C-alpha cells in the first residue's frame, strides 16, 4: 500500500446562539449567582429549565428559584479530564438535583477521589470568578454537608438580561484524501495530471475520486492527461477573497484537460480578464516549489472547435 497523504484539519466555529425567555433568564441568573427552574403544568420544577414541557409539549415559562445546593443522583469518575472540560484535575461527572428541583443538572463535581463520591451525596454550586451568563458560570459542584441553602426570593426578572451565547467549539482531525486523490496530488507535485478511467464507460475522471459517478463502479486505471486543455466555461471574479493575494477582477474557469472527460477548476492568467473565452486553449503554470498549478495561461494555439468540448460544458 503506497503511503497515503495526511494533513491536520481543524474545524473551529464560534456559534452565536440566541436565547428564548427561559434560557435567557436561567443563564442571566447564573451570572447573578441565582439558579432558576421552570414550573410545569403538573407542578414539577425543571432545572435546567426548558421552554416546552417534555411530557405535554406545552409552552412553559413560570420561572422559580431553586437552591444552589443539591443531591447527586448519579455520577461517574473522570480520572483523565479532556480538553475543554470544566476541570483539568480528576473529577466526577454528576447529575445533581438541586434543592427545590425535580430534575437533575449535569456538571462537574470537584472531589478528592472516587471514594469521596456517592449517589445521594450533598453538594453545592461553586461559582466561577468571572461570570458571563453561561453554563460555565457554575465552575463545578463541591461536596457540602450543610442544610439546603435558602433561595433569595428572586423573581427571574433581570435589568440587563443576556439574550445570546457564543458557543465556541474546536475539533482537530487528521484528514486523509484516500487512495485515488493521494495518487492525483502526488502526481501533481511532479507536474503531471493523472486521472482514472472507468472500466465500464471508459470515461477519464480528473481529479479522480476512486469511483465513476455514472456507473457506480471503482476506477483504478491511471491515465495521464493534459497538460494542455480547453476552457469550457468561466466566470469573472470581482470580489477579493480573504487571505488570497490575487488582484481582481480575475477569471476562474472550467478546463477540460486533453484526454479528460471531466473539466476541472483553475484560474486563468496571462491574458486580460475580458479576453478569456470558451474554447481558449490553456496550459498550467507551476511556481517554483508549487505542488499544484498556480494558474493556467493561453498556449497561443487557435481556439478549440465547440464540438470538441461541448459534452464537457
Amino acid at each position, binding site marked *: *500500500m503506497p503511503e*497515503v497523504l*495526511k494533513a491536520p*484539519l481543524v474545524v473551529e466555529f464560534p*456559534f452565536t*446562539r440566541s*436565547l428564548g425567555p427561559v434560557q435567557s433568564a436561567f*443563564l442571566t441568573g447564573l451570572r447573578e449567582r441565582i439558579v432558576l427552574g421552570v414550573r410545569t403544568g403538573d407542578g414539577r420544577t*425543571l*432545572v*435546567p429549565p*426548558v421552554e416546552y414541557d*417534555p411530557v405535554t409539549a406545552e409552552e412553559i415559562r413560570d420561572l422559580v428559584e431553586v437552591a444552589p445546593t443539591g443531591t447527586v*443522583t*448519579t*455520577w*461517574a*469518575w*473522570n*480520572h483523565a479530564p*479532556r*480538553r*475543554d*472540560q*470544566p476541570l483539568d484535575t480528576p473529577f466526577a*461527572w*454528576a*447529575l445533581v438535583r438541586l434543592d427545590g428541583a425535580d*430534575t*437533575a*443538572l*449535569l456538571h*462537574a463535581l470537584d472531589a478528592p477521589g*472516587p471514594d469521596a463520591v456517592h*449517589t445521594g451525596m450533598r453538594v453545592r454550586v461553586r461559582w466561577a470568578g468571572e461570570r458571563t451568563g453561561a*453554563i*460555565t458560570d457554575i465552575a463545578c459542584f463541591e461536596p457540602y454537608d450543610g442544610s439546603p441553602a435558602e433561595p433569595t426570593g428572586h423573581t427571574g426578572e433581570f435589568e440587563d438580561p443576556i439574550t445570546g*451565547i457564543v*458557543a465556541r*467549539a474546536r*475539533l*482537530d*482531525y*487528521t*484528514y*486523509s*484524501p*484516500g*487512495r*485515488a486523490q493521494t495518487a492525483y496530488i502526488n502526481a501533481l507535485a511532479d507536474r503531471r495530471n493523472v486521472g482514472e478511467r472507468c472500466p465500464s464507460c471508459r470515461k477519464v475522471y480528473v481529479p479522480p*475520486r*476512486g*469511483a*465513476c*459517478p*455514472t*456507473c*457506480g*463502479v*471503482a476506477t483504478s486505471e491511471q491515465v495521464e492527461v493534459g497538460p494542455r486543455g480547453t476552457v469550457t466555461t468561466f466566470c469573472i471574479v470581482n470580489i477579493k477573497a480573504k487571505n488570497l493575494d490575487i488582484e481582481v477582477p480575475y477569471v476562474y474557469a472550467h478546463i477540460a484537460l486533453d484526454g479528460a472527460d471531466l473539466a476541472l477548476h483553475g484560474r486563468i492568467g496571462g491574458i486580460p480578464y475580458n479576453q478569456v473565452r470558451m474554447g481558449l486553449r490553456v496550459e498550467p503554470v507551476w511556481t517554483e516549489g508549487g505542488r499544484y498549478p498556480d494558474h493556467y495561461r493561453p498556449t497561443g494555439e487557435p481556439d478549440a472547435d465547440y464540438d470538441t468540448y461541448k459534452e464537457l460544458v
Partner: protein
Amino acid sequence: MARDLPVRDIAVVAFGQTDHRRTSEELSEVEMLMPVLHDVLAQTGLKTTDIGFTCSGSSDYLAGRAFSFTLALDGVGAWPPISESHVEMDGAWALYEAWTKLLTGDADTALVYSYGKSSPGPLRDVLTRQLDPYYVAPLWPDSVALAALQAQALIDAGDTDEPALAAVAVRSRDVAATNSHAQLQGSVPQGEYVVRPLRTGDCPPIGDGAAAVILAAGERARELCERPAWIRGIDHRIEAHGLGVRDLTDSPSTRLAAEKAGAFERPVDTAELHAPFTSQEVVLRKALKLEGGVRVNPSGGALAANPVMAAGLIRIGEAAARIHRGESDRALAHATSGPCLQQNLVAVLEGDPR
C-alpha cells in the same frame, strides 16, 4: 387494540458490510463504501440503474467536512439523476425512510447504506457536538462519560454490577469470533477504568466501517432472495434530550417502539441490539423483555464493532441475514442514536414458514 399492519410486504433481501477496523485512512469514504455496495448488488443481481430509491446515513461531524455524504454518491451511480435521500443519522433511520418510500408504492426496490470513519477525529469529543448546545455541549461531556453516568445509575438501582457488565463484554467478544467482520474478537481484557464505572472492555471499539442493505417489496423480494426477511413492523421513538429529565435505568422509547413494531405479539428467537456499552444491553434487555431463550447479539453486537452511523443498520442487516440463512424465523433488530439511548428504533423481521 390490533396493530395496523403495513399495507405492503417489504423485506430485506441483501446485506453487506466491511471488515471494521481501527482505521481505513488509505481509503476515502466512497472507496471504503463501494465494495459493500457491489456486494449487495451482486447478491441480488441488481444494477445501480435498477434501484428505485437510494437512502444513506452518515455524519459530517465524523468527516469534519460539510455535505460529506455527497461524495459517497459517486459510488451509487448518481448520474443520470436518481431518486435519493440522506439522513444525518445511523443508516437504520435511512432504512426507515426507504421502507416508508416503498410503502407508498413509488418504488419496488431500495438501496440503503451508511458509513462512518471515526479515525480522522477524536470520536469521544466529536460526539459532544450532538448534545444540547446551551447547557451541556459547553461542558464537553464525552460519550463514555455519559454512558458511565447511566451505568452508575443502573448499579445504584441494583440492575447490574461490574462483574455482570464484564460478562456482557466477554460474551459479545466470544461470539464475535465467528464474525469475520468484527473489529474485536475473542478474549479482550476488561482493562482499566475509562470513566468509572466503565472499563475499556465495557466500551465499543472505535473504528471505520460501512454497511448496505437492499429492500424489496412483495413478489420482487421473492425474485431477489430465496428467503426474504420480511419487515413485519418498524418504529422509532425519542426521549427528552435533558439527561436529568430521563430515568437512565429504563428505556421507555425502546419499549414503545417495540410495541408499535409488534415485537411483543409473539416471541422472537434472535435480538440484535445496538448497545455500544455493556450497561446499555442491561437497559435494552429490560425494556424489550428479552427472556433467556432469545439469542442476543449472535454477531457480537456493537461491542465487537461499532462503526458510528453504520452500527444500527448492521443490527438490522445481521438479523435479516440470519433469516436469509435459515438460522432465525423471527428476529428483533434495534438501533440507537444520541447519548444514553436517547433515540431508539425497533424492527421485527420474519422469514416465511418452513
